[in-house]
């Protein structure tokens, strides 16, 4: 087990079975976010903040499109049942402690997006010697870079003045979401010989 992709193939590319597993997870996570941003996006924008919803929707879609095309896919039977647990985890769950259901659902979406954008660093799996111009490696760098920018919208919402009365509920919901996403990510990686650092609040 290593904390990086590998052993690399003869062209210093990421092995196809590792590409498949990692891309499948990322497509599931970002695809779910894209769908939920699409549902939340009105045909006619009525508030300035909704411009960010539009951006989030298209960038999540771009990530999915990019990974579909940049990945060298091979059959991975395990992905079938793993994907079921991934997709279940992305279901909306209103955050406890916020009575307004639409706000509770918005916070839930933001915590999930924060966990995916902040907690998943696919480019950090690339070893230093990976071929720099490999499309999959480049795609992972782009996913990680875009994630850190998309994250800003979640940070602004979750730290923002509207949620100050619900700060404890938000902080604990976010910690739970991070732990949940990290667990799924860790399991996905471990199946292809990659070990991700665990945290103290991760359940074994």
């Amino acid at each position, binding site marked *: 087990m290593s904390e990086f992709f590998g052993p690399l193939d003869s062209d210093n590319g990421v092995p196809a079975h590792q590409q498949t597993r990692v891309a499948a997870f990322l497509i599931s996570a970002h695809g779910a976010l894209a769908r939920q941003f699409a549902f939340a996006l009105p045909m006619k924008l009525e508030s300035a903040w909704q411009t960010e919803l539009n951006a989030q929707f298209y960038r999540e879609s771009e990530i999915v499109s990019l990974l579909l095309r940049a990945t060298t896919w091979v059959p991975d039977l395990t992905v079938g049942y793993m994907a079921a647990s991934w997709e279940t985890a992305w279901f909306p769950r209103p955050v406890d402690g916020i009575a307004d259901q639409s706000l509770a659902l918005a916070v839930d979406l933001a915590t999930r997006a924060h966990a995916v954008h*902040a907690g998943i*660093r696919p480019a950090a799996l690339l070893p230093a010697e990976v071929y720099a111009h490999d499309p999959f490696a480049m795609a992972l760098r782009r996913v990680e870079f875009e994630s850190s920018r998309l994250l800003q919208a979640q940070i602004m919402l979750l*730290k923002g003045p509207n949620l100050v009365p619900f700060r404890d509920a938000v902080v604990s919901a976010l910690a739970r979401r991070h732990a949940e996403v990290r667990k799924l990510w860790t399991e996905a990686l471990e199946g292809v010989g990659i070990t991700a650092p665990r945290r*103290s609040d991760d359940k074994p």
Partner: protein
Amino acid sequence: MLGGDAVLDLTQWILRHVSEGMKIKNLLPGRPMPFLTHGSYRIRYELDGPERGPTYVLVNGLTQYAELWDAYRNALIARHFRVATFDLLGQGASDKPELFISQDDQVAALSLLIGELGDGPVFLGGISFGGLIALRYAIVHGKRLAGLVPMSCFAELPPQLLLIGNALRTGMILGGTSYLQDLLLPMNVSDQWLKPVLDKLDSVKRQGWLVNDVFALQNLMESFLDFQPLTPQLSSIGVPTMILNGEFDFLTPRALHETLRLGIPSSSLVIIPNAYHAFTLEKPALTADLLARFAEDVLAGRWRGNKAVWIAPEDPGGELVPFPAGYDHLRAIPVQRTTS
């Protein structure tokens, strides 16, 4: 010349770890990684050296991690000190709170670590953000300390530092950790350090990029959003204090250290020649020697703060010389000091 060896050591250290493809938790193979618990968070620390010796506790700067003090660990243990290092919340192998990190929590984490050290004398040093956390600790728990060493430090956020800090934060938000590193590198170290590594900067930056997460760095930076100047409380720091400031530090320039010198009663300001903001990285042998000499002087009763201003030697073991009498140490040109 001091800089040459230190530069080579640090560069080789970074490149060696990068080429081995090691992440932080594997940097010290075979050594257990102890943690302290603060609420729901874990703080990773390391404690080495003789159990009965006086202890140096060293606090990281914003984008640093505990391994960057390795040269100090070795040098100070050789001088019979125990050395404690740790990753602040949001750094390295310590937990990274998802949304908020308060500076009070960082002080609490530091208190926990110092609580592990028994009753022996404790000297506390910190660089930049870590220096600020050390100052906060000294204000609240100064009686536990035998000495304090704030390095490249500040007690206030005057407009230049505030705007630089804001720009660094915006840069990181727009360009990620790598861009933040690009902005910090030329502020932190000299041309002499940078020149031989210009063609391998990606390798130099890689470990810091791997270890640091954007959201965690952002939380650390945003712990300044409600920052209140510490200046009014500096006079409560009663312990001997050696303030270290790089000659060419333009991120936290001399005037910020002057606030500390004037505010802390038993202090001296020591200017490190030809040094920038991160002189702890660029000149570890000299800085470790200064730390050891300061603590030895304090323990032997030789330390006299007197708010004096000194110039450090170029090399470890060299003589500290007083800043020339009558000249203004806040100026970059030799201007006679005016009395006010």
